[in-house]
Protein backbone atom coordinates (compact mmCIF):
# COMPACT_ATOMS: atom_id res chain seq x y z
CA UNK A 1 0.00 0.00 0.00
CA UNK A 2 1.18 3.54 -0.67
CA UNK A 3 2.12 5.83 2.22
CA UNK A 4 -1.08 7.82 2.81
CA UNK A 5 -1.06 11.43 3.92
CA UNK A 6 -3.85 12.87 6.00
CA UNK A 7 -5.84 15.61 4.27
CA UNK A 8 -8.96 17.52 5.31
CA UNK A 9 -12.29 16.03 4.14
CA UNK A 10 -12.88 19.14 1.98
CA UNK A 11 -9.58 18.52 0.20
CA UNK A 12 -10.25 14.82 -0.37
CA UNK A 13 -13.92 15.16 -1.36
CA UNK A 14 -14.10 18.52 -3.10
CA UNK A 15 -10.68 19.64 -4.32
CA UNK A 16 -8.31 16.72 -4.97
CA UNK A 17 -7.74 15.82 -8.64
CA UNK A 18 -9.76 12.81 -9.75
CA UNK A 19 -8.99 9.98 -12.11
CA UNK A 20 -11.66 8.01 -13.99
CA UNK A 21 -11.88 4.25 -13.33
CA UNK A 22 -14.35 1.63 -14.61
CA UNK A 23 -15.29 -0.34 -11.47
CA UNK A 24 -18.14 -2.22 -9.76
CA UNK A 25 -20.25 -0.76 -6.94
CA UNK A 26 -18.60 -3.15 -4.46
CA UNK A 27 -15.21 -1.82 -5.54
CA UNK A 28 -16.51 1.75 -5.15
CA UNK A 29 -17.45 1.02 -1.50
CA UNK A 30 -13.96 -0.41 -0.93
CA UNK A 31 -12.25 2.55 -2.63
CA UNK A 32 -14.08 4.87 -0.22
CA UNK A 33 -13.09 2.79 2.82
CA UNK A 34 -9.50 2.76 1.54
CA UNK A 35 -9.36 6.57 1.87
CA UNK A 36 -11.46 6.88 5.03
CA UNK A 37 -8.84 6.01 7.66
CA UNK A 38 -11.07 3.27 9.07
CA UNK A 39 -9.97 1.65 12.35
CA UNK A 40 -12.15 -1.42 12.25
CA UNK A 41 -14.47 -3.19 9.83
CA UNK A 42 -16.67 -6.02 11.04
CA UNK A 43 -18.22 -8.34 8.49
CA UNK A 44 -20.89 -10.92 8.17
CA UNK A 45 -21.52 -12.27 4.68
CA UNK A 46 -24.81 -12.07 2.81
CA UNK A 47 -25.42 -11.77 -0.92
CA UNK A 48 -25.19 -9.21 -2.56
CA UNK A 49 -23.10 -7.48 0.10
CA UNK A 50 -20.44 -10.17 0.60
CA UNK A 51 -18.12 -8.94 -2.12
CA UNK A 52 -17.88 -5.48 -0.53
CA UNK A 53 -16.76 -6.74 2.87
CA UNK A 54 -14.47 -9.26 1.16
CA UNK A 55 -12.76 -6.34 -0.61
CA UNK A 56 -12.61 -4.44 2.70
CA UNK A 57 -10.95 -7.56 4.14
CA UNK A 58 -8.36 -7.27 1.36
CA UNK A 59 -7.81 -3.65 2.48
CA UNK A 60 -7.13 -4.94 6.01
CA UNK A 61 -4.58 -7.40 4.59
CA UNK A 62 -2.94 -4.52 2.70
CA UNK A 63 -2.85 -2.31 5.80
CA UNK A 64 -5.50 0.29 4.94
CA UNK A 65 -7.83 -0.87 7.74
CA UNK A 66 -6.36 -1.48 11.20
CA UNK A 67 -8.62 -4.30 12.34
CA UNK A 68 -11.13 -6.65 10.72
CA UNK A 69 -13.02 -9.77 11.66
CA UNK A 70 -16.08 -11.81 10.84
CA UNK A 71 -18.68 -11.66 13.58
CA UNK A 72 -21.15 -14.39 14.64
CA UNK A 73 -24.07 -13.00 12.63
CA UNK A 74 -25.57 -9.56 11.98
CA UNK A 75 -26.81 -8.92 15.52
CA UNK A 76 -23.29 -9.59 16.75
CA UNK A 77 -21.79 -7.51 13.94
CA UNK A 78 -23.89 -4.42 14.61
CA UNK A 79 -23.53 -4.70 18.41
CA UNK A 80 -19.76 -5.01 18.08
CA UNK A 81 -19.72 -2.01 15.73
CA UNK A 82 -21.46 0.00 18.48
CA UNK A 83 -18.88 -1.15 21.01
CA UNK A 84 -15.96 -0.29 18.75
CA UNK A 85 -17.36 3.15 17.96
CA UNK A 86 -18.11 3.87 21.60
CA UNK A 87 -14.51 2.94 22.30
CA UNK A 88 -13.36 5.73 19.99
CA UNK A 89 -12.81 3.81 16.74
CA UNK A 90 -13.98 4.71 13.25
CA UNK A 91 -15.92 1.72 11.93
CA UNK A 92 -17.55 0.40 8.76
CA UNK A 93 -19.85 -2.49 8.02
CA UNK A 94 -22.31 -3.49 5.34
CA UNK A 95 -25.28 -5.81 4.96
CA UNK A 96 -28.28 -6.65 2.81
CA UNK A 97 -32.02 -7.38 3.13
CA UNK A 98 -32.54 -10.23 5.63
CA UNK A 99 -29.14 -9.51 7.17
CA UNK A 100 -30.14 -5.90 7.74
CA UNK A 101 -33.33 -7.00 9.46
CA UNK A 102 -31.44 -9.42 11.66
CA UNK A 103 -29.14 -6.63 12.79
CA UNK A 104 -31.92 -4.05 12.97
CA UNK A 105 -32.43 -4.04 16.74
CA UNK A 106 -28.80 -3.11 17.20
CA UNK A 107 -28.79 -0.70 14.23
CA UNK A 108 -31.83 1.30 15.39
CA UNK A 109 -30.23 1.67 18.83
CA UNK A 110 -27.22 3.44 17.26
CA UNK A 111 -28.86 6.87 16.90
CA UNK A 112 -30.02 6.88 20.55
CA UNK A 113 -26.55 5.86 21.64
CA UNK A 114 -25.10 8.52 19.31
CA UNK A 115 -22.88 6.17 17.35
CA UNK A 116 -21.16 7.86 14.40
CA UNK A 117 -20.55 5.12 11.85
CA UNK A 118 -21.10 4.36 8.15
CA UNK A 119 -23.18 1.33 7.18
CA UNK A 120 -23.49 0.16 3.59
CA UNK A 121 -26.88 -1.33 2.72
CA UNK A 122 -27.01 -3.21 -0.58
CA UNK A 123 -30.68 -3.88 -1.06
CA UNK A 124 -32.09 -7.37 -1.35
CA UNK A 125 -35.67 -8.62 -1.09
CA UNK A 126 -37.05 -9.14 2.38
CA UNK A 127 -38.18 -12.76 2.57
CA UNK A 128 -40.28 -14.65 1.78
CA UNK A 129 -40.13 -16.21 -0.77
CA UNK A 130 -36.36 -16.34 -0.65
CA UNK A 131 -34.61 -14.38 -3.36
CA UNK A 132 -31.42 -12.40 -3.70
CA UNK A 133 -32.73 -9.70 -6.04
CA UNK A 134 -32.63 -5.96 -5.28
CA UNK A 135 -36.12 -5.00 -4.13
CA UNK A 136 -35.53 -2.00 -1.85
CA UNK A 137 -38.44 -2.25 0.58
CA UNK A 138 -35.89 -2.61 3.42
CA UNK A 139 -35.10 1.10 3.15
CA UNK A 140 -38.58 1.79 4.56
CA UNK A 141 -37.44 0.11 7.79
CA UNK A 142 -34.58 2.60 8.13
CA UNK A 143 -36.51 5.85 7.79
CA UNK A 144 -37.95 6.18 11.30
CA UNK A 145 -35.06 5.55 13.68
CA UNK A 146 -33.03 8.74 13.47
CA UNK A 147 -30.44 7.32 11.08
CA UNK A 148 -29.10 9.56 8.33
CA UNK A 149 -30.01 7.71 5.11
CA UNK A 150 -28.39 8.43 1.73
CA UNK A 151 -29.47 6.56 -1.40
CA UNK A 152 -26.86 6.10 -4.14
CA UNK A 153 -27.87 6.09 -7.79
CA UNK A 154 -24.67 4.61 -9.17
CA UNK A 155 -21.07 3.62 -8.43
CA UNK A 156 -19.93 7.25 -8.30
CA UNK A 157 -22.55 8.06 -5.64
CA UNK A 158 -21.51 4.97 -3.67
CA UNK A 159 -17.96 6.28 -3.48
CA UNK A 160 -18.86 9.91 -2.73
CA UNK A 161 -21.64 9.17 -0.20
CA UNK A 162 -19.57 6.58 1.69
CA UNK A 163 -16.50 8.77 1.95
CA UNK A 164 -18.56 11.85 2.89
CA UNK A 165 -20.56 9.69 5.33
CA UNK A 166 -17.67 9.57 7.79
CA UNK A 167 -17.17 13.33 8.30
CA UNK A 168 -20.96 13.92 8.24
CA UNK A 169 -21.59 11.27 10.91
CA UNK A 170 -18.77 12.54 13.14
CA UNK A 171 -19.75 16.23 13.11
CA UNK A 172 -20.35 17.21 16.69
CA UNK A 173 -23.77 18.66 15.85
CA UNK A 174 -24.78 15.42 14.08
CA UNK A 175 -23.04 12.42 15.70
CA UNK A 176 -25.40 9.90 14.16
CA UNK A 177 -24.90 6.81 11.99
CA UNK A 178 -25.00 7.33 8.21
CA UNK A 179 -26.51 4.61 6.03
CA UNK A 180 -25.41 4.51 2.40
CA UNK A 181 -28.01 2.43 0.58
CA UNK A 182 -27.83 1.28 -3.00
CA UNK A 183 -29.44 -1.45 -5.07
CA UNK A 184 -27.72 -4.82 -4.94
CA UNK A 185 -26.42 -6.26 -8.24
CA UNK A 186 -27.65 -3.29 -10.34
CA UNK A 187 -24.93 -1.21 -8.68
CA UNK A 188 -22.80 -3.57 -6.57
CA UNK A 189 -22.05 -6.12 -9.29
CA UNK A 190 -22.23 -3.80 -12.28
CA UNK A 191 -19.42 -1.63 -13.56
CA UNK A 192 -19.59 2.11 -14.08
CA UNK A 193 -17.25 5.06 -14.34
CA UNK A 194 -16.07 6.49 -11.02
CA UNK A 195 -13.89 9.57 -10.60
CA UNK A 196 -11.50 8.74 -7.76
CA UNK A 197 -9.16 11.04 -5.81
CA UNK A 198 -5.58 9.74 -5.28
CA UNK A 199 -5.21 6.66 -3.07
CA UNK A 200 -2.29 8.17 -1.17
CA UNK A 201 -4.68 10.52 0.65
CA UNK A 202 -6.87 9.70 3.62
CA UNK A 203 -9.27 11.42 6.01
CA UNK A 204 -7.98 12.65 9.39
CA UNK A 205 -8.46 9.97 12.08
CA UNK A 206 -11.61 10.06 14.17
CA UNK A 207 -11.29 12.35 17.17
CA UNK A 208 -13.52 10.78 19.83
CA UNK A 209 -13.15 13.85 22.03
CA UNK A 210 -15.13 15.91 19.51
CA UNK A 211 -18.32 14.34 20.84
CA UNK A 212 -21.60 16.08 21.73
CA UNK A 213 -21.18 15.04 25.34
CA UNK A 214 -17.87 14.91 27.19
CA UNK A 215 -16.74 11.29 27.32
CA UNK A 216 -16.27 11.41 31.06
CA UNK A 217 -19.73 12.72 31.90
CA UNK A 218 -21.80 9.86 33.28
CA UNK A 219 -24.93 11.81 34.15
CA UNK A 220 -26.32 12.71 30.73
CA UNK A 221 -27.05 10.54 27.71
CA UNK A 222 -25.53 8.68 26.04
CA UNK A 223 -23.14 7.87 28.85
CA UNK A 224 -25.88 7.58 31.40
CA UNK A 225 -28.00 5.18 29.44
CA UNK A 226 -24.97 2.98 29.16
CA UNK A 227 -24.37 3.11 32.89
CA UNK A 228 -27.89 2.10 33.81
CA UNK A 229 -31.19 1.89 32.08
CA UNK A 230 -33.41 4.57 33.56
CA UNK A 231 -35.92 4.14 30.79
CA UNK A 232 -36.76 0.68 32.03
CA UNK A 233 -37.99 2.07 35.35
CA UNK A 234 -41.58 3.16 35.33
CA UNK A 235 -41.24 6.66 36.55
CA UNK A 236 -41.87 10.08 35.20
CA UNK A 237 -38.17 10.70 34.77
CA UNK A 238 -37.72 7.78 32.41
CA UNK A 239 -40.45 8.97 30.02
CA UNK A 240 -38.92 12.38 30.03
CA UNK A 241 -35.41 11.19 29.36
CA UNK A 242 -36.52 9.06 26.46
CA UNK A 243 -38.74 11.81 25.04
CA UNK A 244 -36.15 14.56 25.11
CA UNK A 245 -33.51 12.22 23.76
CA UNK A 246 -35.70 11.31 20.76
CA UNK A 247 -36.19 15.01 20.10
CA UNK A 248 -32.44 15.51 20.28
CA UNK A 249 -31.76 12.61 17.89
CA UNK A 250 -34.19 13.99 15.31
CA UNK A 251 -32.86 17.52 15.71
CA UNK A 252 -29.38 16.13 15.07
CA UNK A 253 -30.76 14.31 12.04
CA UNK A 254 -32.06 17.62 10.63
CA UNK A 255 -28.73 19.28 11.40
CA UNK A 256 -27.04 16.77 9.11
CA UNK A 257 -28.65 18.64 6.20
CA UNK A 258 -26.13 21.49 6.15
CA UNK A 259 -23.29 18.98 5.92
CA UNK A 260 -25.09 17.17 3.10
CA UNK A 261 -25.07 20.53 1.31
CA UNK A 262 -21.44 21.08 2.22
CA UNK A 263 -20.03 17.73 1.10
CA UNK A 264 -22.54 16.46 -1.46
CA UNK A 265 -23.93 19.66 -2.99
CA UNK A 266 -27.35 19.21 -1.40
CA UNK A 267 -30.00 16.54 -0.79
CA UNK A 268 -31.56 16.71 -4.28
CA UNK A 269 -30.48 17.21 -7.88
CA UNK A 270 -32.85 18.86 -10.35
CA UNK A 271 -32.64 18.32 -14.12
CA UNK A 272 -34.71 20.67 -16.32
CA UNK A 273 -36.22 22.75 -13.46
CA UNK A 274 -38.83 24.46 -15.71
CA UNK A 275 -40.51 21.21 -16.73
CA UNK A 276 -44.24 20.49 -16.38
CA UNK A 277 -43.93 16.82 -15.53
CA UNK A 278 -41.36 15.66 -13.00
CA UNK A 279 -39.91 12.26 -12.27
CA UNK A 280 -38.96 12.10 -8.58
CA UNK A 281 -36.77 9.14 -7.68
CA UNK A 282 -33.90 7.87 -5.57
CA UNK A 283 -31.25 5.19 -6.07
CA UNK A 284 -31.46 3.11 -9.21
CA UNK A 285 -34.95 4.39 -9.95
CA UNK A 286 -33.26 7.80 -10.38
CA UNK A 287 -30.91 6.27 -12.95
CA UNK A 288 -33.90 4.95 -14.90
CA UNK A 289 -35.64 8.31 -14.41
CA UNK A 290 -32.58 10.14 -15.73
CA UNK A 291 -32.65 8.00 -18.86
CA UNK A 292 -36.39 8.62 -19.30
CA UNK A 293 -35.85 12.38 -18.87
CA UNK A 294 -33.22 12.26 -21.63
CA UNK A 295 -35.49 10.33 -24.02
CA UNK A 296 -38.32 12.77 -23.24
CA UNK A 297 -36.01 15.69 -23.99
CA UNK A 298 -35.00 14.08 -27.32
CA UNK A 299 -38.73 13.97 -28.09
CA UNK A 300 -39.12 17.62 -27.08
CA UNK A 301 -41.33 16.89 -24.04
CA UNK A 302 -41.34 19.16 -20.94
CA UNK A 303 -40.06 16.55 -18.48
CA UNK A 304 -37.70 17.05 -15.54
CA UNK A 305 -36.00 14.87 -12.95
CA UNK A 306 -35.62 15.34 -9.22
CA UNK A 307 -33.13 12.90 -7.82
CA UNK A 308 -33.43 12.48 -4.05
CA UNK A 309 -29.98 11.81 -2.60
CA UNK A 310 -30.88 12.14 1.10
CA UNK A 311 -33.94 10.26 2.39
CA UNK A 312 -33.15 11.26 5.99
CA UNK A 313 -33.06 14.12 6.66
CA UNK A 314 -35.88 14.28 4.06
CA UNK A 315 -35.57 17.36 1.80
CA UNK A 316 -39.22 18.40 2.20
CA UNK A 317 -38.59 22.10 1.65
CA UNK A 318 -36.41 21.55 -1.41
CA UNK A 319 -38.88 19.14 -3.05
CA UNK A 320 -41.83 21.47 -2.37
CA UNK A 321 -39.93 24.33 -4.01
CA UNK A 322 -38.86 22.27 -7.03
CA UNK A 323 -42.42 20.98 -7.61
CA UNK A 324 -44.29 24.24 -7.08
CA UNK A 325 -45.27 24.53 -10.77
CA UNK A 326 -45.47 20.82 -11.58
CA UNK A 327 -48.60 19.44 -13.27
CA UNK A 328 -47.78 15.80 -12.62
CA UNK A 329 -45.22 13.93 -10.56
CA UNK A 330 -44.11 10.40 -11.43
CA UNK A 331 -42.40 8.39 -8.68
CA UNK A 332 -40.80 5.19 -10.03
CA UNK A 333 -39.79 2.75 -7.29
CA UNK A 334 -38.22 -0.65 -6.74
CA UNK A 335 -40.69 -1.76 -4.05
CA UNK A 336 -44.41 -2.48 -3.69
CA UNK A 337 -45.18 -0.15 -0.78
CA UNK A 338 -44.10 3.07 -2.48
CA UNK A 339 -42.30 4.60 0.48
CA UNK A 340 -40.92 7.47 -1.59
CA UNK A 341 -44.25 8.31 -3.23
CA UNK A 342 -45.81 8.60 0.25
CA UNK A 343 -43.11 11.04 1.37
CA UNK A 344 -43.38 13.14 -1.80
CA UNK A 345 -47.19 13.33 -1.48
CA UNK A 346 -46.86 14.47 2.11
CA UNK A 347 -44.26 17.10 1.21
CA UNK A 348 -46.39 19.08 -1.26
CA UNK A 349 -49.76 20.84 -0.76
CA UNK A 350 -51.30 19.24 -3.89
CA UNK A 351 -50.41 15.58 -3.29
CA UNK A 352 -53.04 14.50 -5.81
CA UNK A 353 -50.68 15.25 -8.72
CA UNK A 354 -48.40 12.42 -7.61
CA UNK A 355 -48.66 9.26 -9.71
CA UNK A 356 -48.23 6.09 -7.65
CA UNK A 357 -45.53 4.47 -9.69
CA UNK A 358 -44.43 2.86 -11.90
CA UNK A 359 -43.27 0.27 -9.38
CA UNK A 360 -41.55 -3.06 -9.80
CA UNK A 361 -40.98 -5.50 -6.97
CA UNK A 362 -39.12 -8.67 -6.20
CA UNK A 363 -35.98 -6.93 -7.40
CA UNK A 364 -36.83 -6.91 -11.07
CA UNK A 365 -35.61 -4.28 -13.47
CA UNK A 366 -37.59 -1.09 -13.86
CA UNK A 367 -37.65 -0.57 -17.62
CA UNK A 368 -37.32 3.04 -18.76
CA UNK A 369 -40.20 2.25 -21.12
CA UNK A 370 -42.59 1.96 -18.12
CA UNK A 371 -41.64 5.46 -16.97
CA UNK A 372 -42.09 6.78 -20.52
CA UNK A 373 -45.62 5.30 -20.57
CA UNK A 374 -46.45 7.37 -17.48
CA UNK A 375 -44.87 10.44 -19.08
CA UNK A 376 -47.08 10.06 -22.17
CA UNK A 377 -50.13 9.50 -19.96
CA UNK A 378 -49.39 12.61 -17.88
CA UNK A 379 -49.00 14.72 -21.04
CA UNK A 380 -52.06 13.19 -22.71
CA UNK A 381 -50.02 11.73 -25.58
CA UNK A 382 -51.53 8.66 -27.20
CA UNK A 383 -48.90 6.22 -28.43
CA UNK A 384 -49.94 3.20 -30.44
CA UNK A 385 -46.92 1.21 -29.40
CA UNK A 386 -44.88 2.92 -26.72
CA UNK A 387 -42.46 0.07 -26.18
CA UNK A 388 -40.63 0.50 -29.47
Amino acid at each position, binding site marked *: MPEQKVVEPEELLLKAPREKK*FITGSQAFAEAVKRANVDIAIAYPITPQSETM*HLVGDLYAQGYVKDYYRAEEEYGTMSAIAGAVRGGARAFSATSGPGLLRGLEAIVSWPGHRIPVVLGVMTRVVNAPLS*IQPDNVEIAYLLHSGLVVLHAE*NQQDVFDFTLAGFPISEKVDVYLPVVVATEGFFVTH*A*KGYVELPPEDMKLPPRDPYKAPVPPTDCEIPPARIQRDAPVQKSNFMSYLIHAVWQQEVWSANRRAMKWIYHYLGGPIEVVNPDAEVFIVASG*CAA*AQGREAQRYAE*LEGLPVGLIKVKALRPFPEKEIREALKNAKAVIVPEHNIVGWLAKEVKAAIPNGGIVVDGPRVYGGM*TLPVELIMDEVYKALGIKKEKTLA
Partner: protein
Amino acid sequence: MKRYNIRIAGVGGQGVVTSAHILGNAMSAAGKYASLVPFFGSEKRMAPVEAYVRASDQPIYEVGEVVYPNVIMIYHPQVITHGKSYTMPFYTGLKPNGMVIINTDVDIIPEEDKQVLEELNAKIFMIPATQIARDIAGTELATNMAMIGLFFGITKLVSLEHIEKALVERFLGGTFVASGGTTALDSAIEKKFKKKQELLSKNMDVIKYTIKLAEENKWVEEEEEKVAT
Protein backbone atom coordinates in the same frame (compact mmCIF):
# COMPACT_ATOMS: atom_id res chain seq x y z
CA MET B 1 -27.22 9.01 -29.69
CA LYS B 2 -26.47 5.44 -30.77
CA ARG B 3 -27.29 2.82 -28.18
CA TYR B 4 -26.90 -0.94 -28.19
CA ASN B 5 -28.89 -2.66 -25.44
CA ILE B 6 -27.56 -6.20 -25.50
CA ARG B 7 -28.98 -9.33 -23.89
CA ILE B 8 -26.59 -12.28 -23.85
CA ALA B 9 -28.17 -15.67 -23.15
CA GLY B 10 -26.16 -18.84 -22.81
CA VAL B 11 -25.51 -21.67 -20.40
CA GLY B 12 -23.19 -21.99 -17.41
CA GLY B 13 -19.56 -22.58 -18.33
CA GLN B 14 -19.64 -20.68 -21.62
CA GLY B 15 -18.20 -17.46 -20.26
CA VAL B 16 -21.34 -15.38 -20.71
CA VAL B 17 -20.52 -13.06 -17.79
CA THR B 18 -16.82 -12.95 -18.69
CA SER B 19 -17.61 -11.84 -22.22
CA ALA B 20 -19.98 -9.15 -20.93
CA HIS B 21 -17.06 -7.77 -18.93
CA ILE B 22 -14.83 -7.89 -22.01
CA LEU B 23 -17.46 -6.12 -24.15
CA GLY B 24 -17.76 -3.40 -21.52
CA ASN B 25 -14.02 -3.05 -21.00
CA ALA B 26 -13.39 -2.81 -24.75
CA MET B 27 -15.89 0.08 -24.96
CA SER B 28 -14.20 1.70 -21.99
CA ALA B 29 -10.78 1.27 -23.64
CA ALA B 30 -12.14 2.98 -26.75
CA GLY B 31 -13.17 5.98 -24.62
CA LYS B 32 -16.85 5.17 -25.14
CA TYR B 33 -19.51 4.16 -22.66
CA ALA B 34 -20.73 0.82 -21.43
CA SER B 35 -22.50 -0.65 -18.48
CA LEU B 36 -22.99 -4.28 -17.70
CA VAL B 37 -25.10 -6.39 -15.41
CA PRO B 38 -24.40 -10.04 -14.86
CA PHE B 39 -27.46 -12.01 -13.77
CA PHE B 40 -26.42 -14.42 -11.06
CA GLY B 41 -28.34 -17.25 -9.56
CA SER B 42 -27.84 -20.65 -11.01
CA GLU B 43 -24.09 -20.73 -11.44
CA LYS B 44 -23.57 -24.20 -12.75
CA ARG B 45 -22.69 -25.83 -16.01
CA MET B 46 -25.45 -26.00 -18.60
CA ALA B 47 -27.92 -23.99 -16.50
CA PRO B 48 -29.23 -20.79 -18.09
CA VAL B 49 -27.03 -17.73 -17.64
CA GLU B 50 -27.76 -14.25 -18.86
CA ALA B 51 -25.76 -11.05 -18.88
CA TYR B 52 -26.65 -7.62 -20.15
CA VAL B 53 -24.47 -4.94 -21.71
CA ARG B 54 -25.37 -1.43 -22.79
CA ALA B 55 -22.94 0.23 -25.17
CA SER B 56 -23.09 3.76 -26.51
CA ASP B 57 -21.12 6.81 -27.61
CA GLN B 58 -23.04 8.75 -24.93
CA PRO B 59 -23.17 8.30 -21.12
CA ILE B 60 -25.51 5.54 -19.91
CA TYR B 61 -27.64 5.97 -16.81
CA GLU B 62 -30.07 3.07 -16.68
CA VAL B 63 -29.27 -0.11 -14.80
CA GLY B 64 -30.57 -3.63 -14.39
CA GLU B 65 -31.41 -6.30 -16.88
CA VAL B 66 -32.13 -5.25 -20.43
CA VAL B 67 -35.84 -6.02 -20.76
CA TYR B 68 -36.24 -4.49 -24.24
CA PRO B 69 -32.98 -5.28 -26.07
CA ASN B 70 -32.09 -4.26 -29.59
CA VAL B 71 -29.31 -6.87 -29.70
CA ILE B 72 -29.75 -10.47 -28.54
CA MET B 73 -26.80 -12.84 -28.49
CA ILE B 74 -27.50 -16.55 -28.05
CA TYR B 75 -24.37 -18.46 -27.02
CA HIS B 76 -25.93 -21.93 -26.96
CA PRO B 77 -28.56 -23.50 -29.24
CA GLN B 78 -30.31 -24.99 -26.18
CA VAL B 79 -31.35 -21.47 -25.18
CA ILE B 80 -33.78 -21.77 -28.09
CA THR B 81 -34.33 -25.52 -28.40
CA HIS B 82 -34.64 -26.28 -24.66
CA GLY B 83 -35.94 -22.90 -23.54
CA LYS B 84 -32.86 -22.33 -21.40
CA SER B 85 -33.42 -18.63 -20.86
CA TYR B 86 -35.15 -16.41 -18.33
CA THR B 87 -37.48 -15.08 -20.98
CA MET B 88 -39.50 -17.25 -23.30
CA PRO B 89 -39.41 -17.15 -26.26
CA PHE B 90 -35.78 -16.14 -26.74
CA TYR B 91 -36.60 -12.91 -28.58
CA THR B 92 -38.96 -11.58 -25.86
CA GLY B 93 -38.78 -7.80 -25.70
CA LEU B 94 -36.74 -7.39 -28.90
CA LYS B 95 -37.28 -3.91 -30.30
CA PRO B 96 -37.95 -3.30 -34.00
CA ASN B 97 -34.90 -3.17 -36.33
CA GLY B 98 -32.67 -5.00 -33.88
CA MET B 99 -30.32 -7.93 -34.39
CA VAL B 100 -30.03 -11.50 -33.14
CA ILE B 101 -26.70 -13.35 -33.20
CA ILE B 102 -26.98 -17.10 -32.66
CA ASN B 103 -24.31 -19.74 -32.09
CA THR B 104 -25.53 -22.79 -34.00
CA ASP B 105 -24.43 -25.18 -36.74
CA VAL B 106 -27.91 -25.43 -38.24
CA ASP B 107 -30.90 -23.14 -38.59
CA ILE B 108 -32.85 -23.76 -35.37
CA ILE B 109 -35.42 -20.98 -35.43
CA PRO B 110 -38.97 -22.34 -35.61
CA GLU B 111 -41.07 -21.04 -38.50
CA GLU B 112 -43.52 -19.06 -36.35
CA ASP B 113 -40.65 -17.34 -34.55
CA LYS B 114 -39.10 -16.45 -37.90
CA GLN B 115 -42.33 -14.70 -38.81
CA VAL B 116 -42.31 -12.58 -35.65
CA LEU B 117 -38.67 -11.65 -36.18
CA GLU B 118 -39.47 -10.67 -39.75
CA GLU B 119 -42.30 -8.41 -38.58
CA LEU B 120 -39.85 -6.80 -36.17
CA ASN B 121 -37.44 -6.29 -39.10
CA ALA B 122 -34.73 -8.07 -37.11
CA LYS B 123 -31.41 -9.05 -38.67
CA ILE B 124 -30.46 -12.63 -37.82
CA PHE B 125 -26.87 -13.85 -37.91
CA MET B 126 -26.04 -17.50 -37.30
CA ILE B 127 -22.48 -18.75 -36.89
CA PRO B 128 -21.04 -22.05 -35.61
CA ALA B 129 -19.15 -20.27 -32.79
CA THR B 130 -18.35 -23.42 -30.82
CA GLN B 131 -16.92 -25.11 -33.93
CA ILE B 132 -14.85 -22.02 -34.72
CA ALA B 133 -13.54 -21.98 -31.14
CA ARG B 134 -12.60 -25.66 -31.38
CA ASP B 135 -10.91 -25.23 -34.77
CA ILE B 136 -8.90 -22.12 -33.96
CA ALA B 137 -8.26 -22.17 -30.21
CA GLY B 138 -8.57 -25.92 -29.73
CA THR B 139 -11.18 -25.45 -26.99
CA GLU B 140 -14.92 -24.84 -26.76
CA LEU B 141 -14.17 -22.34 -24.02
CA ALA B 142 -13.40 -19.70 -26.66
CA THR B 143 -17.03 -19.78 -27.92
CA ASN B 144 -17.67 -16.47 -26.19
CA MET B 145 -14.70 -14.90 -28.01
CA ALA B 146 -16.17 -15.92 -31.37
CA MET B 147 -19.44 -14.24 -30.40
CA ILE B 148 -17.78 -11.04 -29.19
CA GLY B 149 -15.69 -10.90 -32.36
CA LEU B 150 -18.77 -11.17 -34.53
CA PHE B 151 -20.60 -8.45 -32.60
CA PHE B 152 -17.69 -6.04 -32.94
CA GLY B 153 -17.19 -7.16 -36.55
CA ILE B 154 -20.77 -6.18 -37.36
CA THR B 155 -20.91 -2.95 -35.34
CA LYS B 156 -17.29 -1.71 -35.63
CA LEU B 157 -17.77 -0.04 -32.24
CA VAL B 158 -14.15 -0.53 -31.21
CA SER B 159 -10.86 -1.47 -32.84
CA LEU B 160 -8.87 -4.65 -32.40
CA GLU B 161 -6.43 -2.97 -30.01
CA HIS B 162 -9.30 -2.01 -27.67
CA ILE B 163 -10.51 -5.63 -27.61
CA GLU B 164 -6.98 -6.83 -26.91
CA LYS B 165 -6.66 -4.33 -24.07
CA ALA B 166 -9.89 -5.65 -22.58
CA LEU B 167 -8.66 -9.24 -22.84
CA VAL B 168 -5.36 -8.37 -21.18
CA GLU B 169 -7.26 -6.67 -18.38
CA ARG B 170 -9.50 -9.70 -17.94
CA PHE B 171 -6.89 -12.45 -18.11
CA LEU B 172 -3.77 -10.73 -16.83
CA GLY B 173 -5.14 -7.90 -14.66
CA GLY B 174 -5.46 -8.43 -10.93
CA THR B 175 -8.55 -6.35 -10.34
CA PHE B 176 -11.20 -8.75 -11.54
CA VAL B 177 -13.54 -10.23 -8.97
CA ALA B 178 -15.46 -13.22 -10.21
CA SER B 179 -17.55 -15.97 -8.76
CA GLY B 180 -15.79 -19.04 -7.38
CA GLY B 181 -16.95 -21.11 -10.31
CA THR B 182 -15.39 -18.76 -12.83
CA THR B 183 -12.09 -18.72 -10.95
CA ALA B 184 -11.96 -22.51 -10.88
CA LEU B 185 -12.70 -22.57 -14.56
CA ASP B 186 -9.96 -20.02 -15.22
CA SER B 187 -7.35 -22.18 -13.55
CA ALA B 188 -8.55 -25.17 -15.57
CA ILE B 189 -8.15 -23.20 -18.77
CA GLU B 190 -4.77 -21.92 -17.67
CA LYS B 191 -3.50 -25.43 -17.02
CA LYS B 192 -4.76 -26.41 -20.42
CA PHE B 193 -2.84 -23.64 -22.15
CA LYS B 194 0.14 -23.55 -19.81
CA LYS B 195 0.58 -19.86 -20.27
CA LYS B 196 -1.84 -16.97 -20.10
CA GLN B 197 -0.07 -15.32 -22.97
CA GLU B 198 -0.87 -18.24 -25.21
CA LEU B 199 -4.48 -18.15 -24.02
CA LEU B 200 -4.62 -14.50 -24.91
CA SER B 201 -3.30 -14.92 -28.43
CA LYS B 202 -5.57 -17.90 -29.14
CA ASN B 203 -8.55 -15.87 -27.96
CA MET B 204 -7.46 -12.99 -30.19
CA ASP B 205 -7.16 -15.37 -33.15
CA VAL B 206 -10.77 -16.46 -32.67
CA ILE B 207 -11.90 -12.84 -32.42
CA LYS B 208 -9.96 -11.84 -35.54
CA TYR B 209 -11.50 -14.75 -37.43
CA THR B 210 -15.12 -13.80 -36.65
CA ILE B 211 -14.45 -10.11 -37.30
CA LYS B 212 -13.26 -11.18 -40.75
CA LEU B 213 -16.31 -13.44 -41.07
CA ALA B 214 -18.57 -10.42 -40.59
CA GLU B 215 -16.66 -8.54 -43.28
CA GLU B 216 -16.63 -11.44 -45.77
CA ASN B 217 -20.38 -11.96 -45.35
CA LYS B 218 -20.96 -8.21 -45.77
CA TRP B 219 -22.65 -8.09 -42.34
CA VAL B 220 -20.90 -4.88 -41.31
CA GLU B 221 -23.43 -2.19 -40.39
CA GLU B 222 -23.56 0.87 -42.57
CA GLU B 223 -23.17 4.10 -40.64
CA GLU B 224 -26.79 5.15 -41.20
CA GLU B 225 -28.33 1.81 -40.28
CA LYS B 226 -26.69 1.68 -36.89
CA VAL B 227 -29.21 0.97 -34.19
CA ALA B 228 -30.70 4.16 -32.84
CA THR B 229 -32.56 4.47 -29.56
